[in-house]
């Protein structure tokens, strides 16, 4: 069964969606969408390193993204530049360096489009293992830091005052962000990973009344997007990443209909 590239893509996509659901909620709650973008841009550098040193792609992307995240934290301490300027600086400079390095690696054939937008054909059985084992680890760790992370998302000082150690939770969460980008890069592509994190979560916010519900609906939204997106990608011969994100946009628009009704009720 795993010989069929489409089945492999489906299993990979489902694994990714289950993990991006809860992480995406935190990205939306903590206003980290641009941070996610920055990590994703830097992933290109990770990919080129993986190719040039014949390393595992997911592992190398994880290392580079984590380094970029640590660099950001250091930069924030050393300059008074606003956060979005620092993020832009890191995002575009790491993307640029990645592209320059690709230029030097002319002896290797790169599928740039596949890197940027995802490629279902490229998903191997090894990738499935990385996605499902890596994903399970991410969810396990997220579960362990849920309380301090969530409390500090609501109010940092409250969490700190009542002894929950929010700084450690934030640092671990940053690593988890790098990890999800590493494992989902083949599916969605580096330009669209943040969309996979944000759009299902944003859709879910429109229809949920509690944090737990928002996480569950976000997972369901992600799953539906993957299934819808992959089938239409097969049908219309489009890249897997954009098809999945377009499907999630479709679900988001549907969820807006729901919120319109509830706003009308209020007035």
């Amino acid at each position, binding site marked *: 069964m795993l010989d069929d590239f489409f089945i492999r893509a489906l299993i990979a996509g489902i694994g990714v969606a289950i993990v991006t659901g809860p992480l995406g909620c935190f990205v*939306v*709650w903590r206003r980290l969408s641009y941070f996610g973008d920055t990590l994703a841009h830097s992933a290109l550098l990770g990919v080129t390193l993986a190719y040039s040193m014949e390393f595992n792609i997911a592992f190398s992307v994880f290392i580079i993204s984590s380094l970029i995240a640590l660099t950001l934290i250091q930069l924030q301490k050393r300059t008074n530049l606003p956060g979005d300027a620092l993020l832009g600086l890191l995002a575009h400079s790491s993307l640029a360096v990645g592209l320059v390095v690709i230029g030097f690696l002319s002896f290797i054939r790169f599928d740039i489009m596949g890197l940027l937008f995802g490629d279902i054909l490229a998903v191997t059985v090894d990738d499935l293992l990385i996605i499902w084992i890596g994903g399970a680890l991410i969810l396990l760790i997220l579960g362990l830091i849920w*309380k301090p992370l*969530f*409390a500090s*998302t*609501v*109010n940092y*000082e*409250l*969490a*700190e*005052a*009542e*002894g*929950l150690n929010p700084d450690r939770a934030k640092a671990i969460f940053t690593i988890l962000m790098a990890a999800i980008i590493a494992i989902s890069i083949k599916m969605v592509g580096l330009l669209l990973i943040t969309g996979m994190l944000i759009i299902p979560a944003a859709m879910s*916010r429109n229809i*949920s*009344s*509690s*944090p*737990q*519900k*928002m996480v569950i609906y976000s997972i369901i939204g992600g799953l539906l997007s993957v299934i819808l997106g992959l089938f239409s990608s097969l049908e219309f011969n489009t890249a897997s990443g954009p098809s999945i994100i377009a499907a999630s946009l479709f679900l988001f628009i549907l969820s807006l209909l729901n919120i319109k009704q509830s706003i009308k009720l209020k007035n």
Partner: protein
Amino acid sequence: MSSDQNILVKLNKAGFSLNNKWLVKGVSLQVEKGKIVTLIGPNGSGKSTTAKIALGIYKKIDGSVEKYTNKVGYVPQKISIDWTLPLRVNDFMVLTESLDKESIDEALSLTGVIHLKDKNLGDLSGGEFQRVLLARAISKKPELLVLDEPVQGVDFTGEIALYELIKKISDELNCGILLISHDLHTVMSATDHVVCLNGHVCCSGSPMDVAKNNEYKALFGEQASQILSRYEHRHDHIHTSEGEIKKN
């Protein structure tokens, strides 16, 4: 009057600076079990900063802070809940500690907001939200309560009731309370120790001592001084026939 094992938190010449400017400097105070310590002072005098030093929120401080408990309840001065976070009162109650339904209901009933349990936090009024904040802080039965203007925006009768509740909690749970308040009338009647701040400790002691202090008078005016002493009258001293004031 205090033995060391009753001390919950102790500040020794503590201070905190931000961007080379001192927010507060040289504050020494201690909060003990069953006692209410109130911080007063004008805006920008470092009351909230002092509370955050005591709570360990500010880490790069001058001087030292010794905290002897981890069971802390905190009502911050301001807290805003983003719309992106769907949070009901019930979810908020278990934010930092898992509680059973009875404890949640009991705390919400005490502050008079049990009927709001399933409401979204964003839909509450300022006063209602303040009551929820207080309920959350007391629901975990803390040893140390830090209340930064806990009754702001609460209606007049509610304000009196909440201060009575705070006093009751201090007695029943035998917890120490560090209170920040502007309302000299209501607070002083229940306070054991007042610290008057103005960037530094300008004076401290029992409400009576502080009321008589010249620096306090200069800071708050003669009227405020009378308010404090008037409250003291009802409690711990008598007037002798010679017009002297004698402690009970």
